[in-house]
């Protein structure tokens, strides 16, 4: 079982993940086209930052962003997304696997650091879950699908944490951890987790008032 989930199934997950992302990028370019920008606010964008600024100016700038409206949610979501990428990519155990499989040596954090990052990640997930359960505006648009996707996101990290601390039967937990990671990779291009890719396409390439930089594509 372990050989199967670490071998062929992992390749399936990688191919579906990367293939899916490439497919989505091609689809995106097929349904959008380049046009002259329509929205050109006079005097540049309102939230443009000066090149040199004091801490007070930085806070003044942030007050006009979603950080001003949702400070806690913004901080939690930043931490969540940073840990989501940093914890697995710079994990020592994963680095050893990279080295064993492809002879590639990658930079890693210490195990205790990754342990803390995982705990932060899980705390952020708990925050999202509680938000979904108890805040009226979030609950109003929450369906079983949202809980399922949250569970798919949490599973690899929770099982990884359990495997590292050798809770329960190590071998079973490890297989569950690999499977959970593969499920997450497979669903990313085809579910709302696709915002991992589409966040950049929507906010950088599509021209709109809120786009970062000069998006010139349109639907």
């Amino acid at each position: 079982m372990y050989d199967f989930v670490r071998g062929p199934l992992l390749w399936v997950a990688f191919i579906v993940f990367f293939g899916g992302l490439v497919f989505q990028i091609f689809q995106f370019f097929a349904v959008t086209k380049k046009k002259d920008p329509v929205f050109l606010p006079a005097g540049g964008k309102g939230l443009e930052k000066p090149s040199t600024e004091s801490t007070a100016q930085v806070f003044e700038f942030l007050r006009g962003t979603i950080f001003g409206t949702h400070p806690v949610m913004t901080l939690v979501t930043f931490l969540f997304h940073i840990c989501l990428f940093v914890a697995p990519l710079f994990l020592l155990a994963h680095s050893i696997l990279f080295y064993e499989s492809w002879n590639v040596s990658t930079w890693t954090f210490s195990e205790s650091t990754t342990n803390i990052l995982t705990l932060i990640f899980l705390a952020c997930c708990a925050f999202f879950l509680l938000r979904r359960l108890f805040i009226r505006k979030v609950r109003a648009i929450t369906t079983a699908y949202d809980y399922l996707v949250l569970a798919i996101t949490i599973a690899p990290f929770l099982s990884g944490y359990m495997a590292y601390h050798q809770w329960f039967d190590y071998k079973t937990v490890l297989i569950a951890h690999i499977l959970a990671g593969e499920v997450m990779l497979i669903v990313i291009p085809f579910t709302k987790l696709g915002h991992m890719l589409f966040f950049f396409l929507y906010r950088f390439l599509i021209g709109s008032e809120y786009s970062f930089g000069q998006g010139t594509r349109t639907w």
Partner: protein
Amino acid sequence: MTEKEKKPVDTGQIRRLLDAKKGKMKRLLSHCAHCSICAESCFLYMSHDGDPQYMPSYKVINSLGRLYRKKGKVDRDFLEGIKSIVWRNCVLCRRCYCPIGIDIPSMIAFTRSICRSQGVYPLFDETTAKESWL
């Protein structure tokens, strides 16, 4: 009852309209993370004491989202139901902010076009309108 209200809904036409823009609209609908961060950017949400039905994401999910889920197979009552969402609960001021970059106003505008294609739209002239919009 006017002639238009008696006429059955042309589900084929709705389906064609939905299909013509599905590349954009279904993608945007599927990438909504249901995070509700857009809520406070809507002045109607703020002025209704945080009533979730005025939240931009709630409005698109329950209008255009339902149209796609039903693949356009809807009746006049359904369209009358979403009429109040896309005309009364949203004024298309384009102030809604989505952190992922989902173009919510274009989705509401598209839903209005679909409703209009079936003769479902508000009549603001009090002498002809049967319902009050205030």
